[in-house]
């Protein structure tokens, strides 16, 4: 398994930093890619690969998104589903939803996503600064 997945942010896509060695995964920035499937496919694949070998291990996933379009929201739901499935399978998964303190929409969206998580532990927090 690879050590890391590192995708730089662009004006339309978020930064993806999956530090598999330290079990810390993070997506941050804005997400409205021209082709959502195309952008998220390698992200999904890398996560599947990682979670497939995580077993009973620990994992932290940070969502630090400023803006996302509807298709990206679906992609985020899929990431959450994968994390929830891993947690249901015995892993300790902490999902952090970090939102801008001025952005009520992103806060509400995080609350809704969190409602679907049962096995994974959900944390809703304001972004630092």
């Amino acid at each position, binding site marked *: 398994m690879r050590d890391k997945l590192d995708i730089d942010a662009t004006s339309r896509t978020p930064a993806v930093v999956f530090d598999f060695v330290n079990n810390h995964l993070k997506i941050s920035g804005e997400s409205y890619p021209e082709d*959502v499937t195309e952008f998220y496919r390698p992200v999904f694949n890398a996560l599947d690969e990682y979670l497939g070998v995580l077993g009973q291990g620990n994992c932290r996933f940070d969502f630090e998104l400023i803006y996302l379009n*509807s298709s990206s929201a679906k992609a985020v739901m899929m990431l959450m589903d994968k994390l929830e499935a891993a947690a249901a399978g015995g892993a300790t998964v902490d999902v952090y939803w970090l939102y801008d303190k001025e952005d009520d929409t992103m806060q509400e969206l995080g609350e809704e996503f969190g409602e679907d998580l049962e096995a994974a532990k959900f944390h809703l927090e304001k972004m630092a600064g």
Partner: protein
Amino acid sequence: MPSNDLFGAEEQTLAAAQELIESGRFADLADGKHYKALVKDYQKLLRATRRLMRLSDRNEEQLNALTKEQRHANELIAQKNKELDALATKLSKYLSPQIYHSIFTGAQNVEITSSRKKLTIFFSDVVNFTETTDKMESEDLTNLLNRYLTEMTNIALEHGATIDKYIGDAIMVFFGDPESRGLKEDARACVRMAVAMLKRLRELHTEWLELGAEQPFHLRMGINTGYVTVGNFGSNDRMDYTIIGSCVNATARLEFHAETDGILIGHETYALVKDEVNTEEQKPIKVKGFAEPLRCYKVLGLYDDLVNEGSVIREEQDGFRLLVDLKKRDRAEAIEALEAVVARLKG
């Protein structure tokens, strides 16, 4: 593992459901029919979700593009406003601040129009300007004149004057339009301004001599109060906000007849300022357009200044007014007169 397409998981669920239907494993036909209907509804719901998501993405895309355009337009507007502000600032230097303010706030229309108003008018001129500056280089002369006009203009504006125009070294300003603090206060402000200008001029003499003027500048000033026509005069393409009328000509004549470094005021101005300004009546002057020679007064100073320098004793209370001009009257005579008054008061 479900497909990682956005709706891969849903497609896989549907495929499994379809397989179940096709396997014919439902014992109960009614259950099978009901399950088939549910799968059909699920398919329909999934199609609707895909469509709505595409539509939502497209709308968001357009909204983002519009926001971007709007931001760009705002930046453009801000840039244009900045350019307009810079232009307006440049143009403002050709106008008196009050006129500029009136026009830019919309309080005054830029059209050929005028009205009659009673104003206090001021003229000043440098005595023998040409001779004084004859031997100077034009650059030095320009600096000298601009410095003089800047200093005088600052004083005029501090006192609330409306700058009408500069005619070479001459300055024409008026008080009472477009803003007025009342006829009396306008006239007083005008005289105070003239006195302040003379004071500043004395301070500038040294500087000018260093610049090469062979003799210091000296001024003549005239002030008069009366009705004038004030407004925009000229053509629709090029107009001046100014004043016209016989009172304006009379002020110019008063200025012409003033002594060097002196202020000569007309009778109406005198009547408005006499409580504050020490004057001395002069021989009336003849002015074209006026049947009678004009009564005029030389300004000797502001009482406040004269009291401070000790040349005047002034006491004023309700029903009691005392003014002793020690330049005009011998101290002993003044004491004698006062003692006579005190004796009468004692009965």
